[in-house]
């Protein structure tokens, strides 16, 4: 059976936002900075392979807990324990109409396993919050305080921790529904495991699945970035003359921007965000005529590699036969296979370059600096989306970023982009090739991205 968590707290502390972030669902509920946005009680069930794992119950916020506590203290209620009083008011429903929303919360208390009490750390531990905790204590259920807005510069975390400690509420969890860290979510589920041991296994599976999800999303996003950079680096437009015309330049720039837009869209889909969450600011594109260096070591190597790969396809079969016959065929099969494979590839590579040179046409391609800017933007976008909570309401702007890499890294990237740029046949790729250059690109993105995976301890 799935565990039921009741999400309670004062109005506008981020209860609905918490559910959005936990569920990775921007569409849940209504989020507004005004108090009293949520006015109904809604349960959202998370299912894993069609099996319920978690029930989260969203409630309206407490708005007048001071008044409610004063009511509880009045005669004849003062003679009852809080638990008895809660039972009385929920069964008889004899609270004044003014407390209609609070009554909805109190009626859910018996039906949950654990209460998650959401705290806005931007507020001090005021009396109304303490009254809420006093009321919830009467439910005789474990209470886990969720410290929301912990990334805010002006928060009262230490005061809250002290107050919670005085009330024996030590198992609190830091969480930010806007700046999301998987480590915090894992800690939340681990806290729930310790409070509800019967639900240990399903929660453990949930943690593992979420972690795998997070890592996979990051991998996929980085691969998408690598592919975008390869597409952009190898994108070429053959101009009709030696000097590119304005329409040719515009067409080229539009193509590059389209690659970036596709990448952003892929990331939004991967991380389950909407179009409005990212604003793509114009990319400053610098391009120059590209010339395939016929004497460039990498160009020749590229063709050599091509040739070798094709040859090895033929040679593999020959070599296989040779090994199995313990060398008795004296390598004849190997040599024959290699010759057949090699001749096919060599002719293809040189053709386009020679034709363009003969016809005096220039070729538009991207500079390494633009590619590095694209890479930095892409990495920053991925890092932002990786840590963006689904309750966040401010759009992210992909402004042109300042490169923060060392000179050595920049030079290395420049060399890598130059090599990749020679592979004009990669312009039309739709998936990342399993080629050493492509893998090197991916490795650079992973190395310089600055993101720690969900499985490792993340730092804020």
């Amino acid at each position: 059976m799935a565990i039921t968590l009741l999400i309670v707290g004062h109005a506008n502390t981020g209860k609905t936002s918490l559910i959005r972030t936990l569920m990775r669902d921007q569409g849940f509920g209504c989020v507004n900075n005004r108090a009293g946005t949520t006015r109904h009680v809604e349960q959202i069930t998370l299912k894993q392979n069609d099996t319920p794992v978690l029930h989260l119950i969203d409630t309206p916020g407490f708005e007048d807990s001071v008044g409610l506590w004063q009511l509880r203290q009045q005669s004849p209620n003062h003679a009852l324990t809080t638990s008895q009083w809660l039972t009385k008011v929920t069964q008889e429903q004899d609270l004044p109409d003014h407390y209609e929303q609070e009554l909805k919360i109190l009626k859910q208390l018996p039906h949950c396993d654990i209460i998650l009490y959401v705290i806005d750390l931007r507020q001090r531990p005021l009396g109304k919050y303490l009254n809420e905790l006093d009321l919830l204590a009467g439910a005789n259920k474990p209470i886990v305080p969720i410290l929301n807005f912990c990334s805010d510069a002006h928060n009262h975390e230490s005061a809250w921790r002290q107050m919670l400690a005085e009330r024996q509420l030590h198992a609190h969890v830091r969480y930010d529904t806007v700046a999301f860290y998987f480590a915090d979510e894992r800690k939340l589920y681990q806290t729930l495991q310790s409070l509800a041991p019967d639900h240990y296994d399903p929660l453990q599976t949930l943690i593992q699945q979420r972690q795998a999800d997070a890592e996979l999303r990051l991998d996929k996003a980085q691969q998408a970035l690598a592919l975008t950079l390869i597409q952009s680096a190898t994108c070429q437009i053959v101009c009709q003359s030696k000097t590119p015309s304005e329409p040719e330049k515009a067409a080229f720039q539009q193509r590059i921007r389209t690659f970036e837009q596709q990448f952003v869209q892929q990331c939004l889909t991967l991380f389950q965000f909407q179009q409005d969450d990212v604003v793509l600011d114009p990319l400053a594109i610098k391009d120059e005529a590209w010339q395939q260096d016929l004497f460039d070591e990498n160009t020749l190597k590229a063709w050599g590699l091509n040739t070798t790969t094709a040859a090895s396809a033929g040679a593999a079969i020959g070599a296989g036969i040779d090994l199995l016959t313990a060398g008795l065929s004296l390598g004849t099969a190997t040599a024959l296979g290699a010759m057949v494979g090699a001749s096919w590839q060599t002719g293809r590579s040189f053709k386009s370059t020679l034709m363009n040179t003969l016809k005096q046409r220039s070729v538009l391609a991207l500079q390494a600096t633009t590619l590095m800017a694209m890479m930095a933007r892409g990495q920053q976008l991925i890092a932002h989306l990786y840590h963006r909570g689904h309750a966040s309401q401010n759009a992210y702007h992909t402004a042109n970023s300042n490169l923060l890499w060392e000179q050595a890294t920049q030079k290395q990237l420049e060399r890598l982009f130059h090599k990749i740029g020679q592979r004009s046949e990669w312009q039309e790729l739709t998936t990342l090739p399993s080629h050493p250059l492509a893998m090197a690109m991916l490795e650079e993105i992973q190395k310089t991205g600055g993101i720690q995976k969900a499985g490792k301890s993340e730092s804020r």
Partner: protein
Amino acid sequence: MSIHEREQKVLSTFLNHHFSNTTPSPTHLHQYQTMDHVIARIHVSLYLICFLLGMMAAPLAFQTGNDQKLNIFWLLVILLGAHGFNLLFWLATLLFFKNGHVLSTVQTLLIHQVGRFLKWDDGVMNAFIQLRLEGIKGFWFRSRFTHAAWTAYLLGGVLSALFFLMTHQVQFVWQTTLLTQQNFADLTHFISILPSIFGIATPTLADIEWAQFNHASQPDETRQRWAIWLLGCVMVYGVVMRVALWAGSRWRYRQTFHQSLLKLSANTKAFSQERTILDADHVLLEANKHPSYQRDEQSNVRLEVVNQIDSAKHYFLFEWSGPLPKQINAMTQHTFLDDGSTQQAFLQQPIPEQGGSQNILVIASASSPDRGSLRFMKHAVAHCEAIWLFSGEFTEDWVNALLALGITPSKVAELKD
């Protein structure tokens, strides 16, 4: 969920993505399944070829001159040398080149060639390669094939050699220029360690002496022992070793395949949601209509702005969390109304008309008004001279709410920092 079901799920997502989110046709799914069968059949055919090659190669290795003498250790090198070399090569790739691009590229090329020959869709081939052969899975897939092929080859060789030895009479000899008989005895004993575990008799010192090159014809028992020992070595160091490696590779392939499916299926939305309203929002009761939500002529009220504060007055800061306004500091009298008791104490003060102190209630309008704060304001207004709103996001909401409570506009002012 079984591996097969998980693979089907991941495959559907793959093909959906490749074919631009249209439902993949049964043809594509059929092609994927067929590819698996075709590759299996190719493998079996190659195993058969290897078996036959082994059967053909062994008699060649046993070719003798007119004297029908076979050099024992040279024979071992011929029978097991290539196998040993291949094993070392495989170990080297295991240790250093598990994700070897050349071998992986070759494999991909071959799959594509087969697929094109059979006119399959690129998307299906790419899905097959990524699901079944990419990364470390590909290494164990190739290893599985390699070890099975060698097993077939060596088995063919052993059977052929067995048949040859059953129908021919040969003498097993060893010869040397640099080594001694003791060296060969030691070598024989060393090689015999593993075969002896399986019950294969180790040639004795006498057998070794009889097998010396320039000796006369050997006794039958000696020839038999050498023959069994030779075949036993090929079985143990060849066939058994390859079978063990094949089993290990097969297990590792299944493991890595399953792990990669788990990882891939994490992106196939293993999670789903279901929502239920447990307690709906009814028609708002009059008592609960939030005054701040009323948008009428009250919102056009222009507030007086406080420029200077009077240090003689007492300032009551209502549920305050932010920094103090600059004008209200340690030099001015101020009290926080943070909880029920301080708020109740405030409400019990004499009202200004009855000689109470001149109180100013200050509200941080960075927080939205709620029912609790408005309930307090309704009573508190009688006990204070004015209510100031310290500039924030919800100033207008507070103004609307206070005016809706019947508080006169002249009593409300804005305090700017």
